[in-house]
């Protein structure tokens, strides 16, 4: 059972492990496969699908006794545009918090293997990199380059997607200029209001590592605020 679960996890697909606590019997459901789960009641199956959407684990009381539904969603993804010093700090922090992290930067001087050893790096423009990435409701996008050519391109993609968090480094003045450009390029005010800027919770820190903490803290805050509103 463990091997089957790990195989699904490594393929970054969702899985639900259903354990009948009285008998110790376990059933692994791969929700995106067609294979039926043998002998599972419709009520448990439905509850499991609902819990998967809510990313929540729960003990169900059933006629077969207590049943634990353990949801294994693929990790949340954090896409960092800009292989800068803050990104070097943010990568391991976000990985510790359970995120799959991808760094995007076409500038070869920045996106070197020496600076980013333990993370997926795409040395490409956002336009081509984002084509290869899935920007879904389990993804956060953060732009750190300070270069409008790169940041704006990434923000256009992010704003046309359902990602749960968009953050962009820059002072209030930088951000005001950025909003002007984005609206000039056809985006609506309601759309650009999704961008968190200045990025991160106001912790007052100044060093790259401290700013990385502030950014990750804000991503986590937004993620849980969203979940609370989802479960009512």
């Amino acid at each position, binding site marked *: 059972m*463990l*091997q089957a679960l*790990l195989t699904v996890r490594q393929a970054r697909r969702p899985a639900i492990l259903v*354990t009948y*606590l009285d008998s110790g019997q376990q059933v692994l459901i791969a929700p995106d496969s067609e294979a039926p789960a043998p002998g599972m009641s419709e009520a448990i199956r439905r509850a499991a699908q609902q819990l998967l959407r809510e990313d929540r*684990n*729960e*003990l169900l009381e059933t006629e077969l006794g*207590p049943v634990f539904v353990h949801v294994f969603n693929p990790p949340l993804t954090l896409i960092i545009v800009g292989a800068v010093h803050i990104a070097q700090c943010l990568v391991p922090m976000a990985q510790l918090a359970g995120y799959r992290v991808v760094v995007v930067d076409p500038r070869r001087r920045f996106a070197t293997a020496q600076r980013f050893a333990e993370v997926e790096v795409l040395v490409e423009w956002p336009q081509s990199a984002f084509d290869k990435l899935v920007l879904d409701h389990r993804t956060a996008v953060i732009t750190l380059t300070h270069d409008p050519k790169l940041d704006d391109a990434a923000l256009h993609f992010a704003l046309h997607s359902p990602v749960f968090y968009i953050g962009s480094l820059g002072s209030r003045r930088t951000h005001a200029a950025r909003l002007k450009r984005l609206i000039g390029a056809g985006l609506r005010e309601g759309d650009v209001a999704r961008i968190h800027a200045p990025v991160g919770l106001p912790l007052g820190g100044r060093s790259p590592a401290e700013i990385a903490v502030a950014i990750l803290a804000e991503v986590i805050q937004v993620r849980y605020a969203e979940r609370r509103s989802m479960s009512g």
Partner: protein
Amino acid sequence: MTELLEIAASWRQRGDRVAIATVVATWGSSPNPAGSQLIVNERGDFMGSVSGGCVEGAVVQAATEVIDLGQPRLLRFAVSSDQAWAFGLACGGTVQIYLEPLA
């Protein structure tokens, strides 16, 4: 970071006997939500957590039994404020933990 279950698989592969503890329900202010896990081998080495560090000792102890008997067990730590002090559990919450041997 290597996932806990991957570590469990690697322990099993090198010949350890392993149990997995999973928080299945909590009441009151228990720090670890349902789904939190701890893995432990027959020597009592453990990784992960099922509480803020308060009931881990008892879980690790119970795990050696579960490994020996080869049968899962459901544990419940209902901690009153007095007991909480004895366990070092600051929260006074209650936690139910499913402990299973890894085949």
